[in-house]
């Protein structure tokens, strides 16, 4: 098998790790940002600490802790599971910051208008605030997805057979240390570029809506 088809065959694994980690991060990030805006000081403090700790650990260290540390003990884990949990946690911390910034961008008057109309907290969040915040958060979320796509190469270190892992194996066995990695780089760019273009398009589109508003 030639190197390109080996790399292409690993694309689904890379995409799977990226997508699953992103999904976990997107949901957990919501929980974290809700915590950071809680009316209880303790909840705010805990949420903030979690974010700080997750952002303070290099992702590869977190992956090793989860896979070799926790995963080799009582809690048996497949490399893929450990990868997704690790990158999912990192994503949660990062995305919660993206959400937090986007919430700060929603004018105070929107909260006040909702309050004055007597809308419940849930209705205010779901129907008034979230849709506006989402527009602001969207470009940052896509940017994170692109970083995550590239950072997913890290999980080759815990034995997930994604692009980087299979490329490395091929390079070692074939003795060619240059071409396989250049091809891998090209594949990452080929996947990431459409995302980047989409992100810029979204950014422009939402900037137009915000200006008009």
């Amino acid at each position, binding site marked *: 098998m030639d190197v390109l088809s080996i790399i292409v065959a690993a694309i689904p694994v890379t995409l799977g790790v990226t997508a699953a980690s992103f999904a976990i991060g997107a949901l957990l990030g919501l929980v974290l940002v809700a915590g950071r805006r809680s009316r209880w000081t303790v909840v705010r403090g805990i949420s903030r600490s979690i974010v700080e700790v997750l952002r303070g650990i290099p992702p590869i260290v977190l992956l090793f802790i989860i896979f070799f540390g926790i995963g080799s003990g009582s809690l048996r884990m497949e490399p893929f599971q450990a990868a997704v949990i690790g990158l999912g946690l990192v994503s949660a911390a990062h995305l919660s910051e993206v959400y937090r910034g986007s919430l700060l961008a929603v004018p105070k008057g929107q909260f006040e208008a909702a309050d*004055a109309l007597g*809308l419940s907290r849930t209705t205010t969040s779901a129907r008034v605030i979230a849709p506006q915040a989402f527009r602001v958060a969207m470009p940052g979320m896509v940017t994170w997805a692109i970083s995550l796509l590239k950072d997913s190469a890290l999980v080759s270190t815990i034995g997930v057979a994604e692009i980087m892992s299979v490329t490395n194996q091929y390079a070692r066995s074939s003795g060619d240390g240059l071409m396989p990695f250049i091809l891998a780089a090209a594949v990452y760019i080929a996947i990431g570029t459409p995302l980047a273009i989409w992100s810029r398009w979204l950014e422009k589109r939402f900037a137009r809506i915000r200006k008009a508003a």
Partner: protein
Amino acid sequence: MKQAESILSLRDVEKTFAGHKAVDGVSLDIARGEVVAVIGPSGSGKSTMLRCINLLEVPDSGTISVDGKNLDTSGTVSARDLTQLRRRVGMVFQSFNLFPHMTVLRNISLPQERVLGRSREEADRRSMELLERVGLQQKADAYPAKCSGGQQQRVAIARALALDPEIMLFDEPTSALDPELGLEVLAVMRQLADTGMTMIVVTHEIHFAATVADRLIVMADGRILEQGPPQQVLDDPQHARTRTFLSAIKDR
């Protein structure tokens, strides 16, 4: 003013921000159907006083009662009391605060569905009625961004009216508008006053205050400086502060 007639009463309402007394013991009775204009220099506490009425600012002390139902604000106000109060009191903001991601019609209908439990059809029907009343039925499907400031403010008025409030609060409703756009908003407010709506209007529009309001209140330093029929207050102010403020406005 007899207690029995008043639809809204404030008693010794106080609100302090970071050591500064924004509202310093205001007591006020508003009669059903009365139109009250509140003027005063910026920082006089008039907007804060207004925002205390629907508890956008929770007063540090004092009571607020709407239609005889007392709310002691020194403790925590329950969510239920808050909703009860807010559904009876509508508010219009200086910056309109329409929801930019919803059409004009959705802006007016959504709160009716969520707060009053009206069906979508019922809410839309009521919204269209109100849009007609403020002269904007043709804008029903437009987004706020496609409306002028004056149109947005008229939509905001319709949105507040859609919840059938008993009292309408206006917080400098024309301050963010060009004078001519302000006029169309004032015309809608004048119409509303004619229907007998109880209104409290914080404003710098002296002409509106003089011709529409039943009572003019002058505030300074978080207190009510003086009040009375607009012509009387404007023509024969009792306080030096009022005279200085009025001449500053008139000279403009």
